[in-house]
């Protein structure tokens, strides 16, 4: 397969009031032609920031400190001060931002937004040309053309999200970065959007997708590979199937453990979330950033940067996987047992230990 995109050594920080919060720290990703890369992680782990860097939309207070983007052999330095050609945004990479379905002006029809978007990239395009393009696209994807004449309140949430997705890809970008596109939708609309994205990839409307979400079951359905981010770094990256069935990083395993699916096993057991919360990135923990919440922590984890086990396309950044090559993390050991779920590590809750602590241990055994 040919390489579509190579982003190497991306580092970016939010600078506010003299504090520097490095939300993405030396992250490299590769995407092949026709591939969907899923990016997973908890809130505040840097997923959306990675999306902003890749889509070339980093704005103050977010500053890109270093990083190179290679698309189709064209190289682009991303660091502050480098000139990013305006034509890249929208036609080489396009961003579908979080909450995009609310970006259609409530007082204007959808077709006005279509014309505005097209005109921003081609000043001489006529209204009819722009709308023809959108009509053709809607027909190709078997959606009703009349949505162009609708106001956003006349469309359902799922339809709005699909329409905005179509508008954001009108210029046939090489890469689409979709930030939490399914999070506000119910399961049936989620499925419709995912099916549409796959159809668009098949029709080569775009050549690759970065799909950012915290919803692992959705990622497993939509993506070819999944990158699990934690505290600004990639903890594990690999084929979607492998991550879903045999995660090699304790954090991926812990995330998977907290997923609820309608299966009989979930009626009886008590699922535990990951204790604590992601670290404050203004002052990240030394060594492996997951070590304070990890159930398989070793002395090295507290002081040394974890090694990358695997190759650049499939790796796990973890001392445990270095010692156990090729093994999946045992699901019940991913998070420490002695900490009970409702008490978060950053708030040592004295006297708040719930009475069910004993039963929880029993249910998990």
């Amino acid at each position, binding site marked *: 397969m040919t390489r579509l995109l190579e982003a190497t050594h991306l580092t970016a920080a939010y600078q506010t009031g003299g504090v520097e919060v490095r939300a993405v720290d030396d992250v490299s990703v590769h995407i092949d032609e026709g591939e969907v890369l899923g990016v997973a992680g908890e809130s505040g782990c840097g997923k959306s920031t990675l999306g902003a860097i890749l889509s070339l939309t980093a704005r103050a207070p977010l500053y890109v400190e270093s990083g190179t983007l290679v698309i189709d052999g064209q190289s682009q330095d991303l660091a502050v001060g480098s000139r990013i050609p305006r034509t890249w945004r929208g036609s080489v990479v396009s961003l579908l931002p979080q909450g995009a379905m609310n970006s259609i002006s409530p007082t204007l029809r959808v077709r006005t937004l279509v014309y505005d978007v097209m005109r921003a990239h081609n000043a001489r395009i006529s209204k009819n040309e722009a709308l023809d393009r959108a009509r053709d696209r809607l027909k190709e994807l078997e959606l009703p053309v009349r949505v162009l004449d609708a106001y956003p309140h006349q469309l359902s949430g799922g339809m709005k999200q699909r329409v905005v997705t179509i508008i954001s890809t009108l210029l046939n970008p090489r890469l689409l970065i979709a930030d939490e596109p399914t999070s506000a939708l*119910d399961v049936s609309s989620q499925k419709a959007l995912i099916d549409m994205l796959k159809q668009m990839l098949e029709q080569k409307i775009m050549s690759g997708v970065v799909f950012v979400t915290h919803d692992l079951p959705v990622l497993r359905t939509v993506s070819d590979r999944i990158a699990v981010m934690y505290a600004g770094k990639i903890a594990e990256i690999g084929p979607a199937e492998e991550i879903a069935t045999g995660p090699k990083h304790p954090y991926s395993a812990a995330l998977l453990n907290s997923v609820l699916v309608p299966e009989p096993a979930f009626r009886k057991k008590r699922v535990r979330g990951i204790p604590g919360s992601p670290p404050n990135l203004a002052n990240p923990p030394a060594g492996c950033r997951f070590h304070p919440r990890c159930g398989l922590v070793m002395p090295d984890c507290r002081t040394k940067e974890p090694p990358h086990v695997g190759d650049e396309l499939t790796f796990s950044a973890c001392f445990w996987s270095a010692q156990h090559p090729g093994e999946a993390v045992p699901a019940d050991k991913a998070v420490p047992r002695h900490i009970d779920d*409702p008490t978060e590590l950053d708030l040592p809750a004295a006297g708040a230990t719930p009475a069910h602590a004993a039963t929880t241990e029993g249910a998990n055994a």
Partner: protein
Amino acid sequence: MTQSVVRDDPALAGSHEALFSAREVNKTFGHGRRAVEAVKNVSFDLNKGQITTIVGESGSGKSTMARMVLGLLPITSGTMTFEDRDVTKLRGGARTAYWRDVQAVFQDPFSAFNQFFTVRRLLSRALRLLGDAEAGQAKMEEALNHVGLSGPDVLDRFPHQLSGGQRQRVMIARALMMSPTMLVADEATSMLDASLRVNVLNVLTDLRDQLGMTILFITHDIGQACYLADRVLVMEHGVMVEQGPTDKVIFDPQHEYTRRLLSDVPRLHD
């Protein structure tokens, strides 16, 4: 449209006492040709000490139903009873009294806070509904302990200093201070990521198991319903299409819509 399926075993009908009952509730928005029937002829019971979940896609009328249960939205026709009292058309003082028994937690823990108020100030404003400022401090701490937070740690914090999961738990604590008999949670976990979501759901199951609280939980996520609920009600376009014990509705669905909802759920494993 097929007939509504009720799956409760008639033999067990008497074993759980209904705390709240809705009978043939209708809600119509607008008039004449523009009328939209958001809820059509819906009847259900919320049993004492159980978690009941309403599932359905966007626009199925589940949130409208929640607002009517809370007395925030007048109903068009039908009756609702709470502890054998008619609560269909409550107004003024009677409605305030009802809110001491029935409390709510809503979807967005980020906008439900006044960002200039500390948690203490937010909670003490809620105490005014009780009209008893004396017990204030103790009540606050007790409620926070129930959701796994400790008073001294969070009371003087501002909302931006709390994580999403902590905020939603403070919101649950606010509802708990009223010592309600029933809690209505409308998509209370939709904005949280998977790990925080599980923690909040565990708080709800603990409230049921330890305080015997009756909970109405509204969600579009069948995975959460399956984990949490004792009974599941399925709504489609304002109609209650299937209701019954979780094991029956989710693992042996009879209505075609319930089956479709289940087949649309993305799976981790095949």
